């Protein structure tokens, strides 16, 4: 083994050791128990040179070693003395000037023939600088979460740092088989350290890469980035691949989320556009309804004026015809009247579907209303259809316009009839319905009376069902229907704060449910329908008629006079006010059109009441717009006579108002 040497005996050797960075050498003579050191060792340890060749006690070896490192070194030396071959330790020594230096001691045991240790020789190298650098590097690596590796071409193992092992979830080690390192990479992924013994450096390129790994300890999936450099190995013809790895999972996830966002951008834009288009469609539909509504309102107004003139005059002529008159003339008048009435019904429907009809809601007993309709229904429905009306006595009260409700039910019944050309069964059933939190879409929770009209007819396809509430949509042949039936029902229900539901199955039948909100009122509020006797007036009762349409005014005035009232007339609100102020006799009733140029009917009414506070007012209108209604319902205390009115309806309404006034006066 190593030749025995005399420390410090050879200047040349000493110079060579110094050049190699050696800070001192020692020779521990085990048999004699003496420690021989060179000058540099003695200098480091602050030893005074003793007599030449005498050496120092062996314990001197530990004298300058930092107390914290001393036990460790004592054990290491015990190992050598006990028979270990190699000594390679790093430890601190405290120099005579008090500075702490890191030393790397490398030594060797020498044995006799019986394997007994006889000498222990070695040298110290000052590694303080390297230690500090290592320390900085270690801190940088652990703080930055960076693991290092070094792989020499052709080897099956790589040198790695603790952080490297931690990042891959491997048990900490300084050397790991390359296969172990690459084993954490997910199936099919490129190896972190390519074993390039066949392909050489090209197998590693590019040096930067990202790898999806399953961490060995906790099974977590992580993304690891690798950066490195190739260094030509001076000792072999091969190369060394030195590099670092670090965790980029967070960055990678962020990137993935971003790219996912990018990928779905188109879809999201499309969704957004579709949503917008839907909103636009809804808006357009609403605008269309509004436009149709305005148009119908305008038409209805003028049309109803015309119909008032036509119906009124036919009425007048009919009443004045002698009983002996030509029956054909009478029949012609009846036909004309029927035609005018149909026209009036049409305008009423137009107003209803555009939700602009003035409703006159009253507490209504549905059971009684249905009972009263059975005659009408039997007349409208053919005998091939069996009609069944179910209305229990304990139904809740509702507050609706009873005439419009009748209209709606008749409409639905007629639709049901038309769906059953070969006969079938028609059921009209009313029931109480309590809707809890989770109701059908668009239906507020609460108490409702449900009126269901069910047929056993042809039913409708889902496509048809989707359009049934559209105005002018009809499944009937041209000329057989207006296409306003269901939309009118829908308009009426919505205006009454209720709902319409429709269920239909082709070849099974259709069920339309009208849901109308329960009212707080009781049955006693229900007013019996007025009888139809003609109520005439007396000349002592003065009525002021205000109407801008000359023909309508003429007819109205004529009718009033015929009924016996004393009538004064005005073509505008301004003239009417003048008359009111000048008139010396009291005016009992103001009958005024609502929509007039200049002053409107309601403006006139308030002005007139300023002059004569107890004045009763009856509005007449073909379409009152919003002048006297609130949310489509008549304001309280407002009386309205819808145009076209007949002799009878005008007579009844005027009488009712005048009498109500008398009653009120009698009570005061």
């Amino acid at each position, binding site marked *: 083994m190593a030749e025995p040497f005399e420390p410090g005996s050879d200047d040349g050797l000493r110079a060579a050791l110094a050049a190699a960075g050696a800070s001192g050498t020692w020779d521990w003579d085990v048999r004699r128990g003496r420690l021989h050191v060179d000058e540099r060792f003695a200098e480091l340890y602050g030893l005074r040179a003793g007599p030449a060749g005498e050496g120092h006690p*062996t*314990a001197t070896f*530990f004298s300058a070693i930092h107390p914290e490192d*001393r*036990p*460790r070194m*004592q*054990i*290491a030396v*015990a*190992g050598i003395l*006990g*028979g*270990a*071959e*190699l000594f390679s330790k790093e430890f601190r020594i405290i120099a005579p000037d008090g500075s702490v230096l890191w030393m790397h001691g490398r030594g060797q*045991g020498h*044995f006799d023939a019986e*394997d007994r240790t006889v000498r222990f020789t070695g040298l110290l190298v000052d590694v303080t600088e390297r230690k500090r650098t290592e320390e900085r590097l270690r801190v940088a690596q652990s703080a930055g979460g960076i693991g290092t590796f070094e792989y020499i071409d052709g*080897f*099956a*193992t790589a040198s790695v740092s603790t952080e490297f092992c931690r990042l891959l979830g*491997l*048990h900490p*080690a*300084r*050397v*790991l*088989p390359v*296969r*172990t390192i690459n*084993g954490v990479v997910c199936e099919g992924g490129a190896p972190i350290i390519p074993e390039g013994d066949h392909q050489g450096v090209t197998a590693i390129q590019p040096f930067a890469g990202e790898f999806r790994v399953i961490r*060995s300890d906790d099974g977590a999936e992580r993304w690891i980035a690798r950066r490195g450099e190739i260094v030509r190995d001076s000792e072999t013809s091969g190369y060394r691949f030195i590099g670092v790895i670090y965790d980029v999972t967070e960055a990678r996830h962020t990137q993935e989320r971003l790219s996912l966002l990018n990928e779905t951008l188109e879809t999201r834009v499309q969704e957004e556009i579709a949503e917008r288009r839907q909103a636009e469609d809804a808006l357009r539909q609403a605008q269309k309804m509004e436009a149709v509504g305005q148009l119908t309102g305008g038409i209805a107004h003028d049309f109803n004026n015309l119909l008032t003139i036509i119906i009124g005059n036919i009425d007048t002529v009919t009443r004045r015809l002698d009983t002996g008159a030509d029956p054909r003339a009478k029949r012609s008048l009846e036909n004309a009247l029927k035609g005018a009435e149909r026209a009036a019904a049409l305008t009423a429907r137009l107003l209803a579907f555009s939700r602009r009809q003035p409703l006159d809601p009253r507490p209504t007993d549905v059971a009684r209303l249905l009972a009263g309709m059975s005659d009408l229904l039997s007349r409208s429905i053919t005998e091939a259809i069996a009609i069944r009306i179910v209305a229990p006595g304990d139904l809740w009260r509702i507050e609706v316009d009873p005439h419009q409700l009748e209209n709606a039910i008749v409409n639905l019944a007629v639709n049901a009839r038309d769906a059953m050309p070969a006969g079938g069964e028609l059921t009209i059933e009313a029931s109480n319905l309590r809707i809890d939190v989770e109701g059908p879409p668009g239906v507020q929770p609460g108490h409702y009376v449900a009126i269901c009209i069910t047929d056993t007819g042809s039913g409708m396809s889902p496509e048809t069902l989707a359009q049934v509430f559209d105005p002018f949509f009809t499944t009937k042949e041209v000329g057989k229907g207006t296409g306003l039936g269901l939309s009118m029902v829908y308009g009426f229900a919505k205006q009454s704060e209720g709902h319409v539901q429709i269920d239909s199955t082709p070849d099974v039948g259709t069920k339309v449910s009208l849901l109308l909100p329960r009212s707080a009122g009781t049955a006693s509020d229900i007013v019996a329908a007025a009888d139809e006797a003609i109520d005439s007036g007396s000349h002592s009762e003065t009525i002021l008629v205000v109407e801008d349409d000359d023909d309508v005014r003429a007819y109205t005035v004529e009718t009033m006079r015929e009924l016996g009232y004393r009538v004064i007339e005005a073509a505008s609100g301004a003239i009417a006010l003048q008359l009111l102020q000048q008139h010396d006799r009291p005016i009992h009733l103001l009958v005024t059109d609502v929509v007039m140029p200049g002053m409107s009917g309601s403006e006139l009414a308030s002005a007139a009441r300023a002059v004569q506070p107890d004045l009763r007012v009856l509005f007449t209108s073909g379409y009152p717009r919003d002048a006297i209604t609130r949310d489509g319902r008549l304001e309280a205390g407002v009386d309205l006579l819808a145009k076209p009115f007949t002799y009878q309806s005008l007579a009844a309404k005027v009488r009712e108002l005048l009498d109500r006034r008398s009653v009120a006066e009698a009570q005061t």
Partner: protein
Amino acid sequence: MSPAAVMLTELESDALTEIVNIGVGRAASSLRKMIGDQVSLSVPAIEVVSQRRAARLISEREIPPLVAIRQDFSGPFSGRALLIFPEENSLELVRAVTGDELSVQEVLDIEHEALAETGNIILNSCLATMANMLQRSLTMTIPEVVRGDGASLFEVWDDNDVDGLVLFLYIDFAVRKRDIRGYIAMLMDLPALEALRVLLEEFIARVVGDHG
């Protein structure tokens, strides 16, 4: 850190490493005498881990099957010593210790015997040195060659609640310029390890006391 890892202090662990190092040094010396060639063995570090962890540690690093030379020891501390190689390395080792003159078939024929003998030299040196340094004596069984994966070598079974401890040493062999790696593992139960720890304490007191 698991309780097992703190079983030995840093100094105790150092002391054990040094003792095993001596044993390994003796083994290298014996091998040198046996095959008349340069042999060096080194033990980088020592760890105390659970059996499960030891099995995982091995599987993390090596592809089964593994070859192990197994010897049981008894005395003041009892247990089982294993010298483990990846199977691909075992023929290399046999070739290294027998010289390169043998044919493949001849190597295969004597593989078992050569492994048992090599393992016996290394494990015996280690254990004998340990006993010697700790001033105790150990009795050892004849070596056996076994094959299997990490779990079977460390007797790790899912229904085995008692997870014994393993002294784990990574060992580098350099024989005839061949780089062969292997592991020395000593399976001990908790009382055995505690007995070993007490002996190490005594050893440290002797060594440090000498010069301290």
